[in-house]
């Protein structure tokens, strides 16, 4: 398991880090992605970094295998047939510990509740066969030689009706776990009953549904949320209560990076709880806050937010009837006779009012500070993505104009991937920083953030240069790419360590 996950880390987790043998770069830990034939030599640098977790990407056949293993395990312990073991597992939502616990207490009760009927013959065989003198209660057919079907409970219907019933359950209702006998009883149709009865493509659908429940019921498994992706990710070490101390980011085989905890796209270094708060806050607040900040002032007395939509500077607050000057926010009475004109910037009441106004606006400004940077990186990441599309063209051009080989122009792809990843990280550092308390640790965090930001902007600048300059800048771009990745790694490692130690103090409550 851990071996497997390491392999995935190599191939996918650090797609952008494999700096083409950049051993000479000082302090660079990158360099071995397995492409250079030194696969068997695992340097220190390939050990899991503090912000990475062990996980495994499972294909549909892997899921089937795990399912089968679990069934095998339960059937051998309990001495049941595989089908019955499976029905029991389905009833206990694939939780074999709970199953064994309950089963040892009350085997018959559990079997009954799960809809397993143990017949006297050791092995009941599902078959479609004609029965003498049979009358189907569904279609009222009693023709000679009519094919019939029944489960262990012997509620027999004609095969056609039974097939339609099961097909409807599977196809229309998306049911797999709990398809009971077509008559009035609780016996569950198991895998082999379904297989005997329905058409192959419906059986395929049934198996897909089973895989789905297998993944959904297992807290260590999650489907990759990317559209049309059929992989699931398995992560044994992370459970819901750990999500305040770790940001479990995984990369699916399809290339999608996402958080195992909440399914959202990669949001390191912010923990899930903060991400949720931040996204909600942004949806609620950002535009409104922007507008408020730009267009309104507050009544110096009651703090009501006021928009001036015309008239003179003599304001009277609708709410508290306080009269003040729009220009200096001071008490209107002090303006004496100089109506419609404010030249009293230094008057005491005006200064005080502006001070307190400043304070109340500060929290708004603070939020906007973080939001704007967050949004900026999001936007820049999109622009960089567009740029990447053009980069591919550039790479082909470079090959023809400068005579470089395909391998030699890969540095642009690496640079682009690094930009994407770093911007994604930067974006979330702002959401994280917004909730951090001011202290020395936060200072260190912000220093790291600043370093990364500088590195990214510098690389971004180089990246945007015209094609003929890019060839000459190759070494610089490669240096910068490696430097960005290094900065990102430092920042994430430090935050991850902080999370594990509980070093970060937040301004809000996180569960």
């Amino acid at each position: 398991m851990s071996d497997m996950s390491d392999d995935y880390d190599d191939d996918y987790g650090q797609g952008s880090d494999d700096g083409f043998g950049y051993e000479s770069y000082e302090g660079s830990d990158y360099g071995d992605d397995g492409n250079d034939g030194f696969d068997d030599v695992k340097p220190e640098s390939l050990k899991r970094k503090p912000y990475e977790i062990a996980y495994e990407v499972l294909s549909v056949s892997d899921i089937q295998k795990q399912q089968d293993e679990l069934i095998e395990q339960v059937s051998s312990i309990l001495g049941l047939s595989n089908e019955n073991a499976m029905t029991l597992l389905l009833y206990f939502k694939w939780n074999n510990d709970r199953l064994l616990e309950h089963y040892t207490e009350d085997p018959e009760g559990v079997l009954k509740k799960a809809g397993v009927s143990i017949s006297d013959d050791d092995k009941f065989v599902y078959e479609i066969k004609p029965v003498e003198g049979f009358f189907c209660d569904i279609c009222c057919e009693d023709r000679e030689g009519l094919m019939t079907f029944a489960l262990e409970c012997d509620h027999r219907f004609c095969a056609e009706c039974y097939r339609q019933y099961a097909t409807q359950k599977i196809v229309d209702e998306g049911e797999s776990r709990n398809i009971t006998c077509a008559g009035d009883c609780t016996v569950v149709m198991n895998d082999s009953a379904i297989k005997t009865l329905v058409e192959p493509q419906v059986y395929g659908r049934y198996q897909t549904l089973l895989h789905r429940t297998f993944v959904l019921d297992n807290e260590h498994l999650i489907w990759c949320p990317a559209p049309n992706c059929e992989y699931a990710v398995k992560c044994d070490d992370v459970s819901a209560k750990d999500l305040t101390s770790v940001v479990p980011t995984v990369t699916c085989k399809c290339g999608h990076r996402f958080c195992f905890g909440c399914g959202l796209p990669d949001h390191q270094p912010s923990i899930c709880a903060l991400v949720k708060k931040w996204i909600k806050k942004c949806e609620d607040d950002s535009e409104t806050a922007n507008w408020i900040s730009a267009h309104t002032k507050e009544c110096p007395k009651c703090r009501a937010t006021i928009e001036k939509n015309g008239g003179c500077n003599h304001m009277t607050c609708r709410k508290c009837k306080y009269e003040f000057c729009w220009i200096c926010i001071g008490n209107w009475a002090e303006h004496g006779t100089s109506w419609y004109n404010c030249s009293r910037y230094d008057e005491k009441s005006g200064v005080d009012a502006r001070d307190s106004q400043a304070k109340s606006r500060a929290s708004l400004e603070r939020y906007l500070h973080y939001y704007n940077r967050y949004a900026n990186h999001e936007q820049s990441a999109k622009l960089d993505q567009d740029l990447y599309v053009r980069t591919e063209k550039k790479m082909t051009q470079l090959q023809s104009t400068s005579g470089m080989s395909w391998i030699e122009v890969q540095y642009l792809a690496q640079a682009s991937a690094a930009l994407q990843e770093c911007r994604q990280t930067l974006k979330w550092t702002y959401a994280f920083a917004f909730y951090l308390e001011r202290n020395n640790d936060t200072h260190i965090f912000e220093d790291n953030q600043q370093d990364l930001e500088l590195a990214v902007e510098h690389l971004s600048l180089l990246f945007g240069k015209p094609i003929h300059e890019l060839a000459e800048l190759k070494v610089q771009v490669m240096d910068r790419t490696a430097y960005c990745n290094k900065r990102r790694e430092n920042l994430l490692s430090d935050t991850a360590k902080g999370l594990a130690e509980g070093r970060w103090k937040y301004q809000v409550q996180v569960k």
Partner: protein
Amino acid sequence: MYKKPSAKGGTAIRRLMTEYKQLINDGPDGISAGPIDEDNFFEWECLIQGPEDTPFEGGVFPATLTFPKDYPLSPPTMKFTCEMFHPNVYKDGTVCISILHPPGDDPNMYESASERWSPIQSVEKILISVMSMLAEPNDESGANIDACKVWRNDRAEYGRIVKANVRKTLGL
């Protein structure tokens, strides 16, 4: 992607005839049902007696049952043809009850699949369910919101309205 199951020709008619025969020979008390016209087995008329010890007591309520072509895979629809003031009956008389909802189609998202229509249900079971629905309305899934409100807040008024309807159906 998958063919929706469809009943073989004649299944619906054969099944409806069998049910009709059973209802004539051995129908439960307080219920009668049968096709309006023996040429069209897909339109039935039925009469339900108001359950005892309820405001509906003494009334006889006519309704129509309309069967789909793929009966018994899909359920029939039922509509009262008299005035009906009841939380689970729409103002146009259509009955909203879980046994009449096809599987996979749960308008109110609260019914478990087991309460809903399945091919082994029958006209008889539907009518019995409707009878017990008259006695015990389910105010969690109201079809007639006004009736729901009155039933919940003012039981005496509810009884009065229902009794007035009963008298109307009897032509008094």
